[in-house]
């Protein structure tokens, strides 16, 4: 309805009380569904974008994760033992139902799907976390948006990396813990323990969360009910939350005959870090201030500096808010677990993180800061809620920054994957293998620990490769390659490459039965002399192995 009075055009939209009520009811009923729908669409669109531009598989680790999953269902020696000890097993176990499909394997969707589902659930968890903290609708939506509109999150949720699965399990654990602190409902504690147990099977960040949460639980219960009850509650919590860790020790004991194999084994992070330390590339080890600086840079680059600063203010507002119960404040400390863990592990030399400008001119594991993203989103959502009229300014400024972040495609994780030490351009080697071995009989001898990216990128079936996980095939082929390996892929003269280490000692290699076909930056390709091909086993004749 239009009115024109005293030079003022007035447009009146008649909205009846009933209409308002119905609209409110609709959003109350379907708000969650709408949010999930938006998150799902965002997730799918991102996957498609990164699939089409080929960035989804840029991370070397993404290809390795997919290969591990694939080896469980396909290869010369398929089976659950292929999960190995290099990485914790949950991401690969979750891939098993889909990884058998070649498209799911080579598109990365098998791993991406897990990340995508994790992305959607984390968004919902952030919404409910903020609701439990008493934040209003705008604060909650800001929290979810900050998380979902982060290019690094969108990229990682489109890949087979494990960050999003870690994020969702940790956030779920922390959320359930918050509810337990708030309502003292034991069921919530059990659920928290369950999710933390899952997190402990994704990455070692989860192990720290377990210890950290147990500590906070004991403080809370002792504060309220004394030592005896605290003991009981902590035992209850730890039994379930620590079960994954127990299983991992058992797994290592059963499969590798050493419960600590994952720590001290030849492919463990510890071993790699030791090599880096010897080469003088582990600057954070023993230097707490530098470790803090490096990790905070990583958080700032992953979560956006401005948003991170707002989150720090939000955290202070939360912890200084007199209206918030002490229990809630204690529970919310778990949001800092990833921060403390990463700084500690850098300081102790248990992990490595290169930030361009701080650690030379390269990136490596720059993505580690992304695990703080849910915490950052929650704190920012809370700050927005508490900012009274300034909330609109904050929203405007965040939109301003996000606008430039999208326009310029600023995602440190993509740089980390594409130009940092996390990537290897193995297309030349894998391309050669695809072109020259696809239609020929014979196996390729290769160390998966060093060249998983080549195996993945070659597009060849897993059963074409003899690697460390193929048992008797590997044992035989490294002693007598001329019986098994038509091609050998290895870094010549590099004793870290297990294939070279073993094959270089074999009689046939020493006698020159193999000729160097091509030399590439990341590996060399050897082929058996044509006259010896007839002596090769080209079929998997060893049958089912234990």
């Amino acid at each position, binding site marked *: 309805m239009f009115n*024109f009075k005293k*030079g*003022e*055009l*007035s*447009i*009146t*939209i*008649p*909205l*009846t*009380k009933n209409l308002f009520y119905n609209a409110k009811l609709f959003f109350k009923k379907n708000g969650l569904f709408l949010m999930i729908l938006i998150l799902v669409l965002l997730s799918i669109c991102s996957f498609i974008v990164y699939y089409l531009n080929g960035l989804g598989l840029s991370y070397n680790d993404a290809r390795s994760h997919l290969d591990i999953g694939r080896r469980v269902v396909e290869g010369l020696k398929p089976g659950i033992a292929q999960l190995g000890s290099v990485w914790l097993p949950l991401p690969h176990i979750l891939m098993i139902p889909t990884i058998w499909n070649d498209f799911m394997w080579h598109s990365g969707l098998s791993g991406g799907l897990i990340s995508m589902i994790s992305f959607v659930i984390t968004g919902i968890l952030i919404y409910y976390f903020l609701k439990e903290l008493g934040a209003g609708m705008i604060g909650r939506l800001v929290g979810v948006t900050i998380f979902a509109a982060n290019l690094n999150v969108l990229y990682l949720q489109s890949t087979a990396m494990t960050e999003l699965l870690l994020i969702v399990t940790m956030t779920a654990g922390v959320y359930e813990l918050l509810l337990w602190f708030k309502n003292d409902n034991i069921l919530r504690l059990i659920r928290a323990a369950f999710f933390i147990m899952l997190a402990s099977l994704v990455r070692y960040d989860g192990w720290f969360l377990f210890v950290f949460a147990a500590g906070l639980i004991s403080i809370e219960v002792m504060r309220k009910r004394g030592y005896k009850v605290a003991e009981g509650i902590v035992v209850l919590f730890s039994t379930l939350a620590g079960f994954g860790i127990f299983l991992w020790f058992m797994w290592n004991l059963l499969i590798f005959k050493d419960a600590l194999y994952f720590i001290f084994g030849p492919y463990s992070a510890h071993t790699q870090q030791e090599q880096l330390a010897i080469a003088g590339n582990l600057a954070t080890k023993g230097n707490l201030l530098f470790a803090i600086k490096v990790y905070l*840079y990583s958080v*700032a*680059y992953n979560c*956006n*500096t*401005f948003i991170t*600063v707002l989150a720090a203010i939000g955290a202070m507002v939360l912890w200084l808010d007199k209206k918030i119960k002490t229990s809630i404040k204690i529970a919310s400390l778990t949001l800092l677990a990833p921060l403390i863990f990463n700084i500690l592990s850098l300081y102790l030399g248990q992990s490595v993180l290169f930030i361009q400008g701080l650690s030379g001119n390269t990136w490596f594991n720059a993505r580690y800061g992304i695990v703080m993203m849910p915490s950052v989103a929650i704190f920012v959502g809370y700050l927005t809620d508490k900012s*009274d*009229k*300034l909330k*609109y*300014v904050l929203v*405007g*400024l965040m939109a*301003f*920054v996000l606008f*430039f*972040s999208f*326009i*310029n495609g*600023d995602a*440190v994780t993509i740089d980390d994957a594409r130009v940092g030490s996390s990537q290897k351009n193995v297309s030349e080697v894998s391309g050669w293998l695809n072109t020259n071995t696809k239609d020929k009989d014979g196996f390729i001898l290769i160390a998966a620990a060093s060249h998983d990216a080549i195996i993945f990128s070659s597009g060849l079936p897993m059963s074409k490769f003899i690697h460390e996980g193929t048992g008797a095939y590997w044992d035989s082929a490294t002693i007598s390659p001329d019986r098994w390996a038509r091609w050998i892929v290895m870094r010549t003269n590099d004793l870290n490459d297990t294939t070279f280490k073993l094959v270089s000692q074999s009689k046939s290699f020493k006698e020159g039965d193999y000729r160097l076909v091509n030399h590439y930056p990341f590996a060399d390709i050897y082929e058996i002399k044509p006259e010896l091909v007839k002596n090769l086993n080209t079929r998997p004749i060893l049958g089912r192995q234990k």
Partner: protein
Amino acid sequence: MIKRSTHNKLTDYFLLFAAFAFSVSILALALRGISGNPTATSGLNDNKWTINGPFELSPERGRFALLYSIVENHSFEFSPELGNFAQPDVAVNNGKYVSIFAPLLSFIAIPGYLIGRYLGISQVGSFATISIFALMNLLLIRAISIRLGASKIAATAAGAIFLFATPAFAYGVNLYQHHISTFFVLLSIFALLKSNKIWSLFIVFFLCAASIPLDYPNLFFMFPIGLFALGRIISFDKLRSRVSIKIALPKLLTIVIMIIPILFFLWYNQNSYGNPFQLSGTLHNAEQISNINPKDLQSIQEKKLLKKEGGQRSAVGFFQTRNILNGFYIHFVSPDRGVIYYAPIVLFGIIGLILAQKRQVKMVTLLVAIMGANILLYSMWGDPWGGWAFGSRYLIPSYAILSIFFALLLTYWNKKTWLYILILPILFYSIAVNTLGAITTSAIPPKVEVLELETLSGIVQRYTYQRNWEFLVAGHSKSFVYQTYLTKYMTPVQFYEILTLSIFTVISSMLIYQGSVTEKKGSLNV
């Protein structure tokens, strides 16, 4: 304790006049320049005018070159001599040398140039234009602070602090755009505060549009002001059974005023670049026009920066979110540009902001939005140092806003003695640093360039205001008054000491007076 129960308007006017007259005198004393009317063919390219003179950096040269070209050659194209003078901020478009700067500043400074030329000091006249805007900014800060609830004396002190205790001082005595940008921001805020009538909207929308040809990034921090003004035109009423959207038609028509600056901008672009929509900042810089003195380290560094840029340039590509971390560091804590080193006094404004927010002072949201946009924008900028510069010049609009909050802080906490004990030494430090910058040089390299400079020059290079101090003790000052009239009577150091102590005495007197008075209830919102 002085009781101001009978508030004397005459005293207020006298104080204002005295403060204004003092500020005019100080700016006049610090104004950079030398006598003469240099021409493109004789003088401008001499070191006397460039490296050692008032046109020490390319932003001043580039804008003056355009001004000169318009007035003397009646053209937007640069002659080869002018192109050489404006290097490296010169672009080649369709075979012509053109300016890469937004043009409005050069136009605004024309009257000053003409008056100066008449008096035989054309450059000084051009620079004085900026000083006039700096003075108007002082008055606007005072006026806005008073309207937001600050006492008059606190508001005046805050204006003077903005002008003399921040890098705004150094950029109020030479040819940069920052004071005019700040003027546009402050005048818009004042117009919105002063009146709800149509004329205020005319001013705001005109300034919003005019800010773009002044300096393109202004668009982003004038945007919140435009949005706020739009809220005066369109209003929502949620009644019991309906929602009413009211649009004030005559006010809506005020937006049309934006056409005037936009048409000017398009006209300039058409005549300069042959395309009304071509932004000068997206043009490629010209190759070297003539040989550069190899001793001119500054030019060498500038050229290197240009080489790095290369490739296709896009307007939004200048702003990268990845730069924010470094940008925050440079603007706030770095020794070469950081606010805590150059203008720590304005940080008290943050406390004023928090108090104002708690007291629900009007327009706090708008002020925070402008400041936020200013800080974020220039933190995303690839060169947060502002090239060779004195302090963080890009944050001058934010210093102005923080000064407003500083006035509110002084008003709210005027009885807290500890605050004054804390403020006075920091005030002295801030004045000392910025007076040093104003009367010496703005050519301070960023820390990242220093190592290379040292290799090139073979001497230790300073990247903080220590460089200004060395310049001063070496017997140099770029003040026009000092160079023309005072060299016989005092050394540059003595000149500096007199200026610093005078400024500190006047401002600290205002602060002490503010701390000693008891405002009559209700007199704050005069």
